[in-house]
């Protein structure tokens, strides 16, 4: 026993303390509890992972039966294998840094205890998701992180746009979860269990599914779930809006951990996907399409957090491309490095926003490198990491994914490289707009306090050196052999794409600052389409939301609810009144008249009995 349950239980304890008593606690106690429990969880993860070395086989701990109906048994079982270990370290490690950062970022905000209680609750659910040893327990964590995401996006609930964004995130995720639950039903129907071990063990007796068979359908349904949680086409629309939440939330939930749950889930279900190549192709295709599509939007956004939001969508697409082409290790590797540099980008952006007292528009920033040197340095570190410039972390993971894509099909590779160039372009564009040139805003800029910059520095070190973690090599025994041959030519192509994107950004936003507007004017139509996010929100609004709301209002509410249900209830009441008003006429109020009626009744009864022969 390694007491795996302690890992999620510690943040849960923090949630209970802050959630129940936080209102009466001083701020120092609140953040000590919140950060302390996560720190303890991180230490416990480290201890467990070290104690379980080399972790060649999954370490399962069964605690109690959660559901037992007929021959269905679902236990509260936690398991740790290498994949889990990687996820645990990322979630608790990055989570801890973001918790520390939040102490500074949220210092002047109301609802301090509420914020930390939600963050701790999120950690609990995320760790449950990662540690679960069966699909249903994983689904509990899956839904729980969705709930926390909703609560934290809508943290400033007095802001209409924030509550709208929270609702949007929750509802869009519901669509994905619908696919996930259907997949769970099919899994149980075919394998009589939802245990990872039993299901994947049972797969041995299945042929590889080359058509639209059961396994392909399960895989596609799981993919639907993953597109919801991990913001892929067609369900990615909630993530950019989710930036309404506080920036640490964007960093923790909507960049580093929760949104990668879909990638984790697909990697976890790798044995199933490997037997369903069509589903795999869909994963890769959707990932690549999302990566490309989101990158084009990211290139023209002006809100700093939106740039990084689309960048997250795009990078998640990369991870899908990785797992979809069979490079599960590389996909998870990119998940890890992305957690470092994207959390850093968001936290850095938060630091900039904090420094400028809430300004998010990059057109009103500029020249900040002198005023916020630490933030500038760490943002630069994250930028070179995400852009894929060697030898920093993003380069290694992205390169592995691109190699795997090349092996599957050169077309995937070339689109991937183009996306990489765009990625490099938009992050460097953000850097040039924010930190170089002349300052274009009014707010008085100041560097953030050490409690915020310290986590940034740690993340910067991880972003730069994260490539040293040989994640895919460590995960290799878990997945089938997948080692595309090293190809120096492809390496050169992807490196030049990274530098090319950076160079274009430099040319447009530093060397000739007038050029972007000229290009935008020349390609007016294309620019507007990308700037307005291809009107996807509007299209969804017209094709899905409006008909749904209209049908609900006109048919379900005014038709069925008001007319049929209320009509039936009120109709019964009205009919009773009507009958009563008729019977009322017989009531004269004279006792003697009633007595006469009684007499009449008795006599007629006697006569009737006599006629019918009842009285002898």
């Amino acid at each position, binding site marked *: 026993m390694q007491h795996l349950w302690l890992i999620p239980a510690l943040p849960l304890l923090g949630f209970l303390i802050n959630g129940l008593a936080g209102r009466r606690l001083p701020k120092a106690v609140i953040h000590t509890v919140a950060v302390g429990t996560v720190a303890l969880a991180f230490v416990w993860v480290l201890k467990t992972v070290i104690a379980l070395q080399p972790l060649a086989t999954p370490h399962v701990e069964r605690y109690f039966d959660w559901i037992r109906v007929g021959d269905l048994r679902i236990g509260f079982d936690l398991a740790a294998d290498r994949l889990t270990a990687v996820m645990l370290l990322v979630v608790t490690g990055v989570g801890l840094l973001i918790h520390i950062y939040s102490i500074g970022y949220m210092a002047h905000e109301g609802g301090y205890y509420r914020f930390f209680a939600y963050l701790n609750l999120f950690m609990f659910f995320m760790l449950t998701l990662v540690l679960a040893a069966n699909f249903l327990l994983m689904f509990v964590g899956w839904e729980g992180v969705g709930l926390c995401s909703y609560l934290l996006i809508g943290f400033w609930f007095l802001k209409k746009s924030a509550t709208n964004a929270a609702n949007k995130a929750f509802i869009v995720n519901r669509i994905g979860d619908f696919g996930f639950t259907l997949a769970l039903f099919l899994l149980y129907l075919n394998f009589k269990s939802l245990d990872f071990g039993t299901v994947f063990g049972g797969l041995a007796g299945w042929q590889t599914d080359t058509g639209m068979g059961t396994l392909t359908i399960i895989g596609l349904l799981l993919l639907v779930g993953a597109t919801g949680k991990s913001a892929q086409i067609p369900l990615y629309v909630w993530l950019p809006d989710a930036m309404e939440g506080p920036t640490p939330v964007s960093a923790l939930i909507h960049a580093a951990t929760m949104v990668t749950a879909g990638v984790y889930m697909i990697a976890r279900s790798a044995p199933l996907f490997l037997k369903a190549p069509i589903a795999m192709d869909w994963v890769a295709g959707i990932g690549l399409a999302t990566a490309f599509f989101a990158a084009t939007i990211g290139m023209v956004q002006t809100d700093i957090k939106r740039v990084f939001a689309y960048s997250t969508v795009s990078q998640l697409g990369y991870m899908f491309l990785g797992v979809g082409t069979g490079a599960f290790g590389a996909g998870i590797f990119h998940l890890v490095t992305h957690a470092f540099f994207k959390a850093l980008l968001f936290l850095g952006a938060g630091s900039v926003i904090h420094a400028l007292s809430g300004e998010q528009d990059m057109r009103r920033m500029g020249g900040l490198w002198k005023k916020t040197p630490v933030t500038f340095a760490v943002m630069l570190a994250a930028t070179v990491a995400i852009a894929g410039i060697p030898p920093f972390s993003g380069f290694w993971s992205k390169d592995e994914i691109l190699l795997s894509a090349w092996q599957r099909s050169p077309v995937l590779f070339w689109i991937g490289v183009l996306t990489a160039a765009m990625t490099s372009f938009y992050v460097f564009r953000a850097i040039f707009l924010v930190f170089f040139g002349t300052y274009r805003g009014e707010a008085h800029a100041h560097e953030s306090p050490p409690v915020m910059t310290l986590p940034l520095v740690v993340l910067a070190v991880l972003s730069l050196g994260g490539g040293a973690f040989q994640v895919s090599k460590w995960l290799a025994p878990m997945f089938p052999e997948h080692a595309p041959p090293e190809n120096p030519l492809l390496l050169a192509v992807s490196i030049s794409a990274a530098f090319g994107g950076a160079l274009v950004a430099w040319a447009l936003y530093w060397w000739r600052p007038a050029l972007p507007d000229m290009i935008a004017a020349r390609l007016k139509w294309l620019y507007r389409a990308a700037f307005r996010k291809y009107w996807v929100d509007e299209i969804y609004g017209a094709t899905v939301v409006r008909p749904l709301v209209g049908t609900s209002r006109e048919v379900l509410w005014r038709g069925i609810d008001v007319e049929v249900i209320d009509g039936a209830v009120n109709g019964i009441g009205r009919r009773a009144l009507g009958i009563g008003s008729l019977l009322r006429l017989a009531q004269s*109020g004279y006792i*003697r008249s009633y*007595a006469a009626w009684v007499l009449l009744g008795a006599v007629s009864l006697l006569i009737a009995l006599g006629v019918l022969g009842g009285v002898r």
Partner: protein
Amino acid sequence: MPNAVPLSWYLALSAVLFTLGVGGFLFRRNIITMFMSIELMLNAVNLTFVAFSYRLRQIDGQVFTFFVMVVAAAEAAVGLAIILIVFKNRATLQVDDLRTMKD
């Protein structure tokens, strides 16, 4: 049973008394009188019970009579109390005046 009064006489008397009771209840307006009419009806029935009991040599009819008398006594107690309260509140014993429930 020589020289006994025939049963039919008792029954006829009982029927006459009962009809008087019904008539009194229907046609008199004073509550007290109606009340007495009810007593009359009850006692008419009692007479029938006793007559049959004597004729059939069975004690059951007489037992029933006692039950009826007990109920009648209880009814008189409750009924007279109600009449008293009604009179206190309305200063009338005319039954046709008491029809507020109708409105």
